[in-house]
């Protein structure tokens, strides 16, 4: 059949302009993956094994269309009764009977019981056409789901008739511009469906998978074919949540999220200083370290600080129960209970092995929706590595990080470092995080002390200094390490070193004191001596003056005598005058 848009083109976007219309499914993540949803006015095959979620896919497509997009729908169910279907999806908040009452949905369930049925001779499926036609007309349906038509092959036996009728049905639906989802059961021999109905549904094929690897169930979705449209080609994990299906594309979110320039303090003042003011609001911090290096305590400090600012915090613990955590953090002065009471802190403890990796992502999804935190702690992501293969764990953590980043939540992850490989973690998520704080134990003089390094901090001038990380009864604190000729000293060695230095300083000061007073004494002595000498000198001078005066007087007397004598002898007067002047 010739069709305008059934042309292979290198670029889906161009075709979209030509007119590949799409019908949004409303299924979380799916419309992003397909750039708009399912091909409108065409049929999409959704195939998968038992319990892979194909019926749910179809139902959500109908419910979201009817409820949110003003597109009523019809479900023809060949496997389950309307009541069964309604019960199955009521837990997701889909009220099928109510939608039927509102005239937005028709569910027509066919019971095809091979045990009470025989076929003889030729037949057609006009009964189905008539019922479908009625249903579509009664609500003005735009969407139709056939779940699972392949039952007819088993029940009615005559394969060639059913093939022909299926083909006719698809044409009939297309003529009415109905967007159709046909579900199919995965074939045993690797085929997409048991009866090869993918031959008739050629526009779009979605494959659902429920696989168990490493004893863990993971649901995956793949778009095997989407004629005339670009689409993601990977296998995407998806979840069945209490709000329907959620497809989680690994790559389509995360790197597009906006970047915040707001800084948030960590609650450890000196750490803020090391990070040039704190963490970026939407950044991801990895706190890695060996066992007992204080990862949880540091994360809890950040949580405590956020609560102190009146922000909401979600603390997911894969290691400790809430009660344990509250008690243990209380011992270092972090009174978290008051934040729990104030409704700011939500503690969520779960054993990593209690769920598959998918479930952990679902839970985080739900918790984020419920609590809308501004900071979230995942403690410890290493716990998750007990659940699955490292590649799967890494992907899970990456999804969690993406989810947090997309919401602008500050994420604090703790991770156990590999033995002996303190700068790599078991999950190799370090490239995904923005700030990486490493806590390390040093063992010296029979004691262990904690050191904190800022390994990296994107977009932040950060300190290259090693700090001693101390857990006191007033919370976490950073102390300067002692860097001296003996190397880096921490703990009591640092304290001993500092004490030594203090003692030496005291000794030096005392010595200086002593020398000071000796000098003072000597100064006093010298001054005394100076005074004595001065007095001596003054006395001498006095004597001298006395003597000179007498001498002058004597001279004057003598001169007078001489002058008298000269006058008496008639001598030359000049010599007498010179003598008097001298």
């Amino acid at each position, binding site marked *: 059949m010739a069709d305008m848009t059934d042309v292979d083109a290198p670029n889906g976007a161009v075709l979209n302009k030509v007119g590949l219309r799409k019908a949004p499914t409303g299924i979380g993540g799916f419309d992003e993956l397909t750039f708009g949803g399912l091909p409108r006015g065409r049929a999409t095959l959704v195939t998968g094994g038992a319990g892979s979620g194909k019926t749910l896919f179809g139902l959500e497509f109908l419910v979201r269309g009817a409820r949110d997009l003003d597109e009523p729908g019809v479900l023809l169910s060949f496997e389950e009764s309307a009541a069964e279907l309604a019960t199955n999806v009521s837990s997701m908040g889909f009220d099928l009977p109510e939608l039927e009452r509102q005239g937005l949905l028709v569910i027509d369930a066919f019971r095809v019981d091979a045990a009470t049925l025989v076929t*003889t*001779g030729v037949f057609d499926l006009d009964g189905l056409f008539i019922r479908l036609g009625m249903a579509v007309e009664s609500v003005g349906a735009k969407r139709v789901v056939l779940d699972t038509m392949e039952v007819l092959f088993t029940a009615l036996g005559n394969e060639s008739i059913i093939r022909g009728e299926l083909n006719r049905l698809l044409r009939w639906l297309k003529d009415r511009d109905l967007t159709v989802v046909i579900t199919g059961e995965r074939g045993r021999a690797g085929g997409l469906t048991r009866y090869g109905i993918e031959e008739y549904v050629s526009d779009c094929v979605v494959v659902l998978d429920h696989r168990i690897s490493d004893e863990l169930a993971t649901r995956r979705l793949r778009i095997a074919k989407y004629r005339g449209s670009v689409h993601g080609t990977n296998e995407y994990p998806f979840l069945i949540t209490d709000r329907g299906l959620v497809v989680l594309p690994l790559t389509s979110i995360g790197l597009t999220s906006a970047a915040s320039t707001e800084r948030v303090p960590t609650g450890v003042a000196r750490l803020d200083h090391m990070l040039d003011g704190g963490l970026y609001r939407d950044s991801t911090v990895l706190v890695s370290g060996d066992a007992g290096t204080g990862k949880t305590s540091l994360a809890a400090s950040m949580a405590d600080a956020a609560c102190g600012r009146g922000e909401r915090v979600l603390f997911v613990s894969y290691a400790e129960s809430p009660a344990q955590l509250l008690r243990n953090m209380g011992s270092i002065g972090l009174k978290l209970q008051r934040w729990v009471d104030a409704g700011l802190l939500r503690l969520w403890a779960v054993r990593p092995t209690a769920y598959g990796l998918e479930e952990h992502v679902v839970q985080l999804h739900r918790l984020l929706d419920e609590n809308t935190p501004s900071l979230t702690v995942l403690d410890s992501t290493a716990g998750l590595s007990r659940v699955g293969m490292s590649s799967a764990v890494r992907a899970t953590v990456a999804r969690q990080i993406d989810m947090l980043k997309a919401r602008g939540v500050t994420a604090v992850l703790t991770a156990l470092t590999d033995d002996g490989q303190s700068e790599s973690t078991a999950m190799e998520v370090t490239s995904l995080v923005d700030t990486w704080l490493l806590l390390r134990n040093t063992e010296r003089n029979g004691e262990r002390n904690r050191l904190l390094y800022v390994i990296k901090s994107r977009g932040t001038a950060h300190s290259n200094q090693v700090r001693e990380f101390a857990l006191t009864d007033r919370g976490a604190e950073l102390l300067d390490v002692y860097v001296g000729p003996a190397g880096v000293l921490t703990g009591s060695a640092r304290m001993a070193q500092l004490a030594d230095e203090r003692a030496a300083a005291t000794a030096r000061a005392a010595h200086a004191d002593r020398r000071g007073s000796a000098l003072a004494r000597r100064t006093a002595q010298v001054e005394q001596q100076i005074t004595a000498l001065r007095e001596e000198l003054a006395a001498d001078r006095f004597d001298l003056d006395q003597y000179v005066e007498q001498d002058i007087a004597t001279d004057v007397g003598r001169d007078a005598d001489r002058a008298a004598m000269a006058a008496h002898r008639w001598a030359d007067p000049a010599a007498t005058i010179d003598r008097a002047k001298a």
Partner: protein
Amino acid sequence: MSQDGWIDGPADEEFNLRLYVAGLSPKSIRAIENLRQICETHLAGRYRVEVIDLLVNPKLARGDEIIAVPTLVRTLPQPIRTIIGDLSDADRVLVGLQLRPEARPTQ
């Protein structure tokens, strides 16, 4: 009912049959004719047939879970039995109506 289903109830049991068709297509006419012959041969005097044209009464399709046409439904005697097709194989129809044991298990 006997254990092997050889005779379905007493020989004077009433048969209530409904034949669903969609318009008077050749298939429909063939089915009606085949049914008439089988009834006359095997159920003479103790059957009632109601022919329902779904093009005229589409709503009735929902009641008996009709997917295919022609479909013959035996409403009496209980339990309900369904035979799909133009009834061209009389033996299969008799098996379907439980007037004859099955030669082979139904699919």
